[in-house]
């Protein structure tokens, strides 16, 4: 399946993947970020219970320098 992450499609095995699994595969454990799935924010409390499916559009954001 393909998931659109921050504007780029990325291939994953299987038909669905939990937020937790995605974070591990992307090496983001311990990092500070927030996630949006198809325009809806996913609260940190629900990372294990929410799945991503083929075609989902994910935004993963963090804080950077800015005025």
């Amino acid at each position, binding site marked *: 399946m393909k998931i659109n992450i921050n504007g780029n499609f990325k291939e994953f095995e299987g038909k669905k993947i939990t937020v937790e699994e995605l974070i591990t595969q992307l090496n983001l454990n311990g990092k500070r970020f927030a996630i*949006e799935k198809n325009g809806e*924010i996913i609260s940190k409390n629900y990372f294990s219970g929410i799945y991503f499916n083929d075609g989902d559009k994910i935004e993963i954001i*963090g*804080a*950077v*320098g*800015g*005025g």
Partner: protein
Amino acid sequence: MVDKISNINDNLVIAGRSFQSRLLVGTGKYIDFKQTRAAIDSSAAEIVTVAIRRINVGQSPNEPSLLEFLPANKFTYLPNTAGCYSSDDAIRTLRLARELLDGHNLVKLEVLGDQDTLFPNMVETINAAKILVKDGFDVMVYTSDDPIIAKQLEDIGCCAIMPLASLIGSGMGILNPWNLEIIIDKANVPIIVDAGVGTASDASIAMELGCDGVLMNTAIALAKNPILMASAMKKAIESGREAFIAGRMDKKLYSASPSSPTKGLIK
């Protein structure tokens, strides 16, 4: 800072949060995070703006992040909506920021209207402010220096009004002190000049006018020596504030009142 004469606490209070420094700084345009932190320490600023962007998914797990250099126990983050050109984008960005920062709700709203000038789009800004205030955000809002718009933003419930002194990143200084004075005169919430300051005297002038604070980024980050400029800005803000509280003498075209005694002249 303390009023040296009356010893009154002169903290800047925004939405119930109290700050000793009236200088707010951005975190963009520095060479690296080390320089960012050194300049901010030199400025003694407590509120730091941060931008919200897509993270680099392919980055190394050990790559440092801005927030590690600016720990939450030492700084108050002010996530901003820089780069947003619609109220929808700004609202979306700040909701993500609130999730990112564990419910932190003090934010800077700016909705731009034009890529060349970075002038704010006040129609979109007002629309976004209404929704964000209802949604529980404490909104510090970037605005044009129009006193009527500034008052409307206060009436909506914004906790600080932040008019531009001149365009973002221009360093042109305070182009319309008269409008700023009217905005300050009418306001019941802090007025913070945001954008346009080029050097220390600009910051002093803003504070002498009665602004409650100044937010700047480029003036420090793009100085030849950012750390020294940060220190200069700290002093400029403090001296401008003290001069405002002290109350300046009246201006006169000329004066028949010399500073030295007119009696006892040697003849």
